[in-house]
C-alpha cells in the first residue's frame, strides 16, 4: 500500500511535469472530476490529480525527514539520560518535561511565523522547493521528540539493569557500543511504533499549520495546503478536500501497518525455532 503511495507520488511525476501541476487554466475553474481531470480542478483551474502527486512528494518528504530529526534527537536524549542517569538524566528530563508542557501547536505556530520566509528557495533534483518546507520539517522534528525521548529513556533504564549489559561491561565493551549495539536494538520495538506514529503525526501537523496558512507556501503543493485551499469549498467542490484527505488517511494507516510489520520482522522471537 505504502509502496503504491510512493509510486503514486514519485512515479506520477514522470507522467505530469511539475509545471502542469501549477498550470492555471481559469476557464476550467472548479470543474468536478472528469475524464480529463480525474480528480477535478481547483479554484484557479489547476489539475487536482497532478497537485496531489506533487503534494504527496512534499508531504511524504516532510513526514520522513521530520521523523528522522525527531528520532535522532529523541533517541539521543533518551539514551543519554537513561544510560548515564544521575545529574544528566535529571537535567535532560526536566528540559523534556518543560517542552512537553508547552502546547505543540503553539510552538509550531510561533516558530513557523518566526522562521517562515527567512529561508530562500532550494533547488533540488531539478525542482524548486519553497524554503518553508525545510522550516516545517525542522519545526515539526524539534517539537515532537519529547515523547520518544521519554520512551527511549524508560527502555534504557530497565534494559541497562539487565545482566547482558553488565556482561558487556565486564568484557570491556565501550559505553558507546553498549548504548548503540546492545541496548538500542533491544528497544527498537517501541521506537518503531513511536516513529511510525511520528510520520503520520508530521504529515498531519503539516496539514494543520497549512490549514492555518502558516505551512508550506504556495505555489508548492502539499496535501496539507491543498486541504487548506479547500476550506471555502467544503460543500460546493468536495473533490478538493476529498482526494488529499483520502491520501493522508491512506498514508497514515499504511505507515502504521508498516511499523507493526517492521517490529515483528525485527523480533528474533518471531523467527521459527
Amino acid at each position: 500500500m505504502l509502496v503504491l503511495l510512493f509510486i503514486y507520488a514519485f512515479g506520477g511525476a514522470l507522467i505530469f511535469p511539475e509545471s502542469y501541476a501549477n498550470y492555471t487554466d481559469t476557464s476550467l475553474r472548479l470543474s468536478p472530476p472528469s475524464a480529463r481531470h480525474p480528480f477535478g480542478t481547483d479554484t484557479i483551474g489547476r489539475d487536482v490529480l497532478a497537485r496531489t502527486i506533487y503534494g504527496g512528494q512534499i508531504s511524504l518528504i516532510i513526514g520522513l525527514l521530520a521523523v528522522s530529526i525527531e528520532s535522532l534527537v529523541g533517541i539521543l536524549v533518551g539514551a543519554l539520560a537513561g544510560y548515564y542517569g544521575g545529574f544528566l538524566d535529571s537535567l535532560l528530563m526536566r528540559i523534556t518535561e518543560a517542552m512537553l508542557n508547552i502546547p505543540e501547536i503553539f510552538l509550531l505556530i510561533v516558530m513557523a511565523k518566526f522562521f517562515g520566509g527567512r529561508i530562500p528557495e532550494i533547488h533540488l533534483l531539478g525542482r524548486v522547493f519553497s524554503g518553508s518546507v525545510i522550516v516545517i520539517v525542522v519545526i515539526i522534528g524539534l517539537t515532537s521528540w519529547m515523547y520518544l525521548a521519554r520512551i527511549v529513556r524508560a527502555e534504557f533504564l530497565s534494559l541497562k539493569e539487565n545482566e547482558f549489559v553488565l556482561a558487556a561491561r565486564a568484557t570491556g565493551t565501550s559505553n558507546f557500543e553498549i548504548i548503540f549495539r546492545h541496548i538500542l536494538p533491544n528497544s527498537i520495538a517501541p521506537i518503531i511504533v513511536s516513529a511510525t506514529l511520528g510520520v503520520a503525526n508530521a504529515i498531519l501537523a503539516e496539514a494543520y499549520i497549512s490549514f492555518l496558512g502558516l505551512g508550506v507556501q504556495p505555489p508548492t503543493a502539499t496535501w496539507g495546503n491543498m486541504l487548506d485551499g479547500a476550506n471555502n469549498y467544503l460543500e460546493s467542490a468536495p473533490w478538493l478536500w476529498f482526494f488529499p484527505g483520502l491520501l493522508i488517511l491512506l498514508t497514515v494507516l499504511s505507515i502504521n501497518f508498516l511499523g507493526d510489520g517492521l517490529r515483528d520482522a525485527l523480533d528474533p522471537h518471531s523467527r521459527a525455532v
Partner: protein
Amino acid sequence: MKPADPLVVVKNLKKYFPVTSGLVFQRKTGEVRAVDDISFTVERGETLGLVGESGCGKTTAGRTLLGLYPPTAGHVTIDGMDVYAARRRRDLLAIRRKAQIIFQDPYASLNPRWTVDAIVSEPMRVHSILPDPKARSERVKELLSLVGLSGQLVNRFPHEFSGGQRQRIGIARALASDPLFIVCDEPISALDVSIQAQVVNLLEDLQDRFGLTYLFIAHNLSMVRHICNRVAVMYLGVMVELGERDELYDHPLHPYTQALLSAVPIPNPKQDRARQRMILSGDVPSPLNPPSGCRFHPRCPLAVERCRQEIPAWREVATGHWVACHKVAE
C-alpha cells in the same frame, strides 16, 4: 610465575550505594552499606566460595572487585594489576581480558537480539583477538564445543535455548578472552537440579583444563562444599568467617556459620530427623541501618554486651581460618 603470590587481592573493600532524593540536584539521604570493609585473597588455580543469604552483599562484592561498580573505598589487584587505578582504556582492557564473570540468570545475561556467534565473539572483537573473521568464527565453534554445545548453533538466538544451554553460552563467552579469573555469580541457582550437576562438572573440567581461578558466589552451601577449596561467609556486608572447605564445614567457629550450616536440609530422612538444628530467630536486618558492634548480635544466641558495642576484629585463629567474633577463643 611465583606460586605463592595470590591472583586476586582484595583489601578493605567498601561499596555503599547512596539513597538520594531531589529533582535536579540530588541530596544524599542515606546509604546502603552493601559491602563494608572486606579483605581476602584468591590463590591461583583455586575456587573460593563466597556464601551468605540474600542481601549479604556477596553479589555486590563480586561485581565491585571487577570494577563493574565503582568502589567506595579499598584496593583490588588482579594478577598484579590495580583494578581501580586503571584510568586509560588500554589498562582497563588488559584487566577485563584477564577477569570475567558468569551470571545467575541465563535469560537476562545474553542479549536477546544477538546471535550466539555475536555473543561469544564479542570479547574477541573488543580485545582484537583473531581479527580474521574466519578464524574467529572457527574459534567460536571451538568454544561452543568446549562447553558441550554444537558448533552448528552459532546463528541461533538465545531464546531458542534451554536454561542450561544458555548458561553454557555464558560460560563460552567468559572463556573467549582466555581469562585467568572468573567470578561465577550464582551460576546454577536458576537451574533445575539435574542440570546443576552438569554445569558444575563443566566448570570443574574447564578449571582443570585451563588452570582457571574461580570466585564462586552462591547460597547453596552443599554445592559450595562440593566445588570450592576455601569458603568465605558473609553476613550483612561483612565477612564473618573464612577457611579451608572441610575445616569450615566440620568446625564452623562463627555462630552465624553454625546456624547457616545447620539450616541446610540433608537429603536423608533419618539423619535429618536425628540432627540437632539451630534455628535462628528473626530476619536479616536492613543494610540501610545495620546493627552496631557485631552485625549479627541481634540474632546471635551467644551475644553479650561487648558484641553490641565493639566491632569484632577480623583475625586468623588457626592457619588459614579467619573469623570475626568476640566469642571465639584466641
